[in-house]
């Protein structure tokens, strides 16, 4: 789901951060390409082999640009392996950090030509991050290796492998910080939770990429270049697994959204209500620093929060449950929770749905957010241009019992930034 926000107060600084990162990447690329062309390529066979691997990995990228954290895992693993390559089949290599960057960028560009032709090439942020992380790994490793110091310090055994893994962990951390900083600059969401989400994702595909990078670097050192295609296969399997998982998650989300539309079509709730509440809840959850799994729970619960009304014989007028007596609200919430439990969704979602009518001190945070967003959407509707302000005022007046003050203030910030734009339907 994509979010577009109107530029917030920090947009000037944001633009500087993004421009600085991208500028650095562009300068680095230009310098390394220039230097490589000037001095010629060391060990062209090895460079070509890794270049082909990276290009193929880029070709096999998946998903919409920016939609995934690691859209081209094979390309990334190949680039990291080339950055950390010290030997091929027992012969020492001599390529420097600048050549690594040049080969990786050139190969990635070649590999993304078909994607660019189809109009969905890699995003500039992503490319910039890729260049900087590969450069980081190469600068840490190649000069030390080429001067022969690594061999003198560590010898050629397990310590060397450990060093590679340590360097990769460091590189991954840098990448996560960079990604979180860019996301923070672009969206204005708090940095801490963004970094936490990046690190959490790192444990999944990120660690597979790093491990494969280390394995390729070591295996090529032992066996030679023939190992390259063979040893990428497990990572391809991982990529396939992630892709199928992503596909089924998308389908699942679509089905839940359809279930949510059932109440709208049945006339229990107004058009687009569930989607608006889901979008608002997610934005408020972001603002309050919830993690990605919690945001998913929040979104599903917000989509299905009115589902209990399907069990009612007569619709509530305009679906405005926030105006009903508390007892009635709680009854509908319990009906909804029972329905959600039948759908096989995570039990946490059912809890949020059935607790949404309780006073906020008895609720989990996710339920507080859904309740506040739901009430806001119901109150703000149909009051003309003054609707949002009136609704926020009424929410603030009810913070004694029903709505948590922090959540209401966070909602106010989200709304003041121009709210949220809905993703296009279908």
């Amino acid at each position, binding site marked *: 789901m994509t979010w577009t926000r109107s530029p917030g107060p920090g947009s000037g600084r944001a633009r500087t951060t993004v421009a600085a990162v991208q500028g650095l990447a562009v300068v680095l690329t230009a310098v390394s390409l220039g230097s490589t062309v000037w001095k010629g390529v060391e060990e062209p066979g090895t460079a070509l082999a890794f270049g082909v691997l990276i290009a193929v990995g880029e070709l096999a990228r998946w998903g919409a640009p920016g939609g995934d954290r690691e859209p081209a895992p094979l390309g990334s693993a190949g680039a990291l392996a080339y950055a950390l390559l010290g030997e091929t089949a027992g012969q020492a290599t001599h390529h420097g950090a600048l050549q690594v960057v040049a080969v990786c960028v050139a190969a990635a560009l070649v590999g993304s030509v078909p994607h660019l032709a189809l109009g969905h090439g890699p995003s500039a942020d992503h490319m910039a991050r890729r260049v900087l992380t590969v450069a980081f790994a190469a600068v840490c490793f190649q000069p030390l290796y080429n001067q022969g110091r690594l061999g003198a310090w560590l010898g050629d055994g*397990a310590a060397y492998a450990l060093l590679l893994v340590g360097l990769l962990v460091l590189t991954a951390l840098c990448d996560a910080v960079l990604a979180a900083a860019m996301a923070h600059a672009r969206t204005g969401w708090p940095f801490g939770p963004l970094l936490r989400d990046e690190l959490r994702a790192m444990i999944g595909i990120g660690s597979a990429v790093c491990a494969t990078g280390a*394995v390729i670097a070591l295996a090529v050192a032992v066996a030679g270049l023939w190992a390259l295609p*063979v040893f990428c296969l497990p990572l391809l*399997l991982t990529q396939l697994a992630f892709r199928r*998982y992503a596909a089924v998650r998308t389908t699942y989300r*679509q089905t839940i959204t*359809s279930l949510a539309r059932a109440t709208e079509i049945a006339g229990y709730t107004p058009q687009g209500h569930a989607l608006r509440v889901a979008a608002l809840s997610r934005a408020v959850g972001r603002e309050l620093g919830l993690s990605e799994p919690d945001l998913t729970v929040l979104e599903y619960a917000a989509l299905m929060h009115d589902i209990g009304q399907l069990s009612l014989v007569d619709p509530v007028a305009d679906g405005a449950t926030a105006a009903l007596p508390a007892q009635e609200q709680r009854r509908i919430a319990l009906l909804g929770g029972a329905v959600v439990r039948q759908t096989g969704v995570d039990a946490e979602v059912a809890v949020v749905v059935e607790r949404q009518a309780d006073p906020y001190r008895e609720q989990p945070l996710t339920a507080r957010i859904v309740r506040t967003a739901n009430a806001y959407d119901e109150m703000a509707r149909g009051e003309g241009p003054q609707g949002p302000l009136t609704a926020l005022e009424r929410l603030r007046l009810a913070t004694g019992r029903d709505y948590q003050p922090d959540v209401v203030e966070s909602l106010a910030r989200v709304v003041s930034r121009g709210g949220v734009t809905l993703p296009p339907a279908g």
Partner: protein
Amino acid sequence: MRTVPPVALCYVLCAAGGALACLAPAAGPATPWPAVGLLAVLYTGCEHAGQCRVIGRRVPQGMGTFFPVLLAGAFLLPPAAAALVAVPGALFARTDRRPAGLRRVWRAAQLALATWAAARVHGALGGTAAVSAPHSPYALVPAGAAVLVFCATLALLDGGILATAERVPLRAAWRGLFPRALGPVAVHGLAGLMMAVLWRSPYGPFAALLVLLPMYISCWVFAQYHRERAAHQETIRALVQAVDIKDGYTRGHSERVGQASMMIARELGMAEERAEVLRFAGILHDVGKLGVPTRLLRKDGPLTPEERRIIELHPEYGHEMVRGIGFLGEARAAILHHHERMDGSGYPYGLTGAQIPEFARVVAVADAFDAMTSTRSYSRARPVDVALAELSRCAGAQFDPQMVGALVRALGRHGWHPAVTADEAAAQVPWPRAARRAASR
């Protein structure tokens, strides 16, 4: 497998005896015990990772067997020692089905035999030297042969246990076992080769462990994928149950329409993926009834024209609901048009003949067939042949004769066994009732 047939017991004991014979040479001085111990611990750990709470908050169940360690053992160790690697992990693995003890012994024996055979072949082709000095792709040849033998042994033994314990005919038991297993085992075999090469290299066993990480993660993600898919199917089921109950039909109408649509699709020779989508079209065809007031759907007696008009909106409601579900594809058109008639007198658009989407013509026939053969509040169930005769009578004017013919042929061949499955009988409480109970708590 409640009571184990004596033949199966005998078969398992023979396998265990064979495995012991293979393991016996490991007692000799040639066994590198540290390596065997490390690999055995690793394999046991991988098999148990599913239960471990430390690795992940929610590690899903059913990750399948983890072969790379076993194959790495086969590439690194003498045959008897390699077979030994499999034993502790298989003996301590968790089994959900009874009899657990016998299943564990069987699994251990089977894996020990397969690993032994693989190690034997690998050694005979000079694999040990190739792994130690892997400067040419020749290392792939013994490894590939070992993978083939490993997979064939597993398939052979599996087929045997199916034949003896479940009394499946031997030929049927073996059919497809080998080709189905070969793909995954080949990938695991490459990972095993990678482990073995790195293990023998100066970088040592630590570097070999790195290979397992991507393999483990992909197994983990696949397991999550299966869990998520199951949850998705559960959600669709809930949606469908809601419709059936609201409508007051006998339960399972939607499922049965899905089943009949699938039969017609197979008879028409549709590709398996399209047939699957058509099944969903059948299952979800009435989902729009969620949008129609319950009072109207359950009304006894004749409907006023106004009420009829509201009920006839349900295809459009349904289409509106599932519009955003990408994978339904053609099924969405079927949901919109399943009440069109060939002569143009149907709704919502009054399309005629070939203007009606193919899927909609199939679902219309399946829907009418199940409506006639199941008991409704307003009519008793009719026998299948009477219903088919009625369908044939209306073919041309109301139904597409091609679809009716396909249904007649399919039923003639396979009969009609509506899926009133065990889980339907042991059904969860239908949701309004469950909901009412929850609300009165």
